[in-house]
């Protein structure tokens, strides 16, 4: 029925099955939308946040998806600036995943604020000293870049491409994509960094606070770095999951291997820097503020924030995947590669959780106790909403747009096909 829209030379599942899939995911999306409207109408009392937990699940989700969306900027940087031509075979998908991540982040931010209708004050009345201002500006601008990068893909749809203007537009945009990518990389560097700065500058919160260079705490650089390392891992992870879901090979192993290798080395350097940062923070920064490392990890209810979290983040989800990814034998083993990128992705998510949630859970006043929090269903639903939205957008993009340049080559149509 929709064959006219499907790219040439590839096969897609029947429309009915596709729509059934969309309907299922759409139901989840709808659940999130209901929760979102509930929050818009009734206010943030629908969440389980409180005056001690001003930032909660959403901000974590925000930081996590942006870190994971970092695959777009870093792959773009490698492809357009450093000239890693092989990556052109995965750049489209990286851009799409980035687009999903960033649009989700903006959506979550729009739900998260107490006065959404005044949210534009962040731009108009901008306080340039606030990391959040930097986040907002760079995030919005970079989302613009991702949109610019995504538009040509849409324009390459078989039907749209038939229109001369659009075809030319897509071509021209491809032509100067390096300029956009460079700008994107610049913006990305600053907003990934400023997200790291969000907790790093809080000198009232010894757990989050880091010293650094000038106005930028170490976390500023660590965040950019970790996004550059874990973003590509997420791209690989989603590509693999897409391949599993479509039961097709979509990207050649060399491409994945190259990206994984680069991500691996990024991760190695990142985790080394992270360890140095942790040691310095534990030995110098925190004691100077009157805290010992173990103050941050003990006496919390149920050991929810025990030392295990540090070991899991740095060791299990940091050092381990880094070492795995730089080993060619691991990269060649599909399962181990999958495990490695999965761990790296979890590591990034865990890092963001620690820096936002644990940062607030740690009592600072000596007579206060740990603050614990569990999100309400409305928070969970609105956090899952972008996931559903992302799956739907990816599904549509995959079905109707030439996302994977190598798909036709890797999956030749049987005789008699289109």
């Amino acid at each position: 029925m929709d064959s006219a829209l499907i790219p040439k030379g590839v096969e897609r599942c029947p429309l009915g099955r596709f729509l059934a899939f969309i309907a299922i995911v759409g139901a989840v999306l709808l659940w999130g939308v209901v929760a979102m409207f509930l929050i818009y109408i009734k206010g943030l009392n629908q969440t389980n946040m409180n005056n001690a937990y001003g930032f909660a699940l959403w901000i974590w989700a925000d930081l996590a998806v942006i870190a994971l969306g970092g695959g777009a900027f870093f792959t773009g940087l490698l492809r357009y600036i450093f000239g890693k031509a092989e990556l052109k075979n995965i750049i489209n998908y990286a851009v799409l995943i980035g687009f999903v991540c960033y649009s989700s982040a903006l959506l979550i931010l729009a739900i998260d604020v107490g006065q959404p209708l005044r949210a534009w004050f962040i731009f108009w009345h901008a306080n340039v000293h606030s990391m959040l201002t930097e986040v907002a500006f760079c995030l919005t601008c970079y989302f613009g870049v991702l949109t610019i990068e995504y538009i040509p893909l849409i324009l390459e749809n078989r039907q749209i491409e038939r229109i001369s203007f659009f075809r030319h537009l897509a071509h021209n945009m491809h032509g100067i994509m390096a300029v956009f990518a460079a700008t994107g990389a610049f913006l990305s560097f600053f907003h990934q960094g400023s997200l790291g700065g969000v907790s790093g500058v809080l000198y009232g919160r010894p757990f989050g606070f880091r010293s650094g260079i000038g106005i930028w705490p170490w976390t500023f650089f660590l965040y950019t770095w970790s996004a550059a390392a874990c973003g590509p891992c997420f791209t690989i992870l989603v590509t693999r999951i897409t391949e599993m879901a479509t039961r097709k090979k979509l990207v050649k192993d060399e491409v994945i291997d190259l990206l994984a290798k680069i991500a691996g080395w990024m991760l190695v350097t990142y985790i080394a820097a992270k360890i140095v940062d942790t040691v310095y923070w534990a030995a110098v920064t925190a004691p100077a503020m009157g805290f010992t490392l173990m103050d941050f990890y003990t006496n919390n209810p149920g050991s929810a924030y025990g030392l295990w979290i540090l070991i899991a983040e740095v060791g299990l989800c940091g050092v381990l995947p880094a070492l795995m990814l730089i080993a060619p034998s691991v990269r060649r083993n599909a399962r181990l590669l999958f495990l490695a990128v999965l761990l790296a992705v979890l590591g990034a998510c865990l890092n963001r959780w620690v820096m936002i949630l644990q940062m607030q859970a740690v009592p600072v006043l000596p007579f206060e106790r740990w603050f614990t929090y569990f999100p309400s269903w409305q928070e969970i639903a609105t956090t899952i909403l972008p996931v559903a939205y992302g799956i739907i957008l990816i599904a549509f993009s995959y079905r109707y747009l030439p996302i994977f340049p190598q798909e036709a080559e890797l999956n030749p149509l049987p005789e008699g096909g289109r």
Partner: protein
Amino acid sequence: MDQPKNKRYGMVIDLDKCTGCGACMVACMAENNIPFRDDDTDKLLSVSWMHVYRLSNGKPFPQAEECFLPRPCQHCEGEHGHSPCVSVCPATATDYDMHTGIVSQIYTRCFGCRYCMAACPYHVRQFNWWDPVWPEGMERALNPDVSVRMRGVVEKCSFCYSRYQTALNRAYVEGRRELAEEEYQTACAQACPAGAIVFGDLNNPRHRVHRIVQPDLAHGGRPRNPKAFRLLERLGTHPKVYYLTGRDWVRRAGDNEVQKS
């Protein structure tokens, strides 16, 4: 225009005098139009600019001791007014005023991102999770000098700035530009039946607050009075709320510096 000398308004709370009665909280609520709800027992969801903490020395019966610690906004000065919350506000909805040393806020500018709440180690910043609702008739007791905050914004103690505004107005009409110490007092200081709260200008050597704590203004206002301390001195927030106590354990409980060393 010649400007009056900069003030540094601050507070001294004598923890040995404070009885934890809550008059400061109630006076503050009445002065500043603090909303209340059917269930306000979850203090993490409740708005109260002044909160009285209950501190315990952690010893077993009968050596157990308790102390009450009223906590208004500390009006941190940080380094040159970069208090933890002020510098993080993305929309410049909160500010540090060098003329008074007060951390001020425009509620109508705030769009509720809550970054300042995450930044404040004292939990003085509170969010309006609900629309403020007064039972029929009780809104008549609202004070027009303080605007009522809508749902979705952060608020905190302002050192009763509206009382400063009205006091200044009165002075202007009388042709004066400077206020006497007693002309500008916060609602909590005025109400405290135990006389535990003293309020005034730390820059002014004649004011009681200055005389009591003897602040070392060259070093962020560190108290020279050995009985005085500030909450979390070591963070470098340079609060303008000082506490007095003769009890060692109270001092330790309020200040992580002495606590940990």
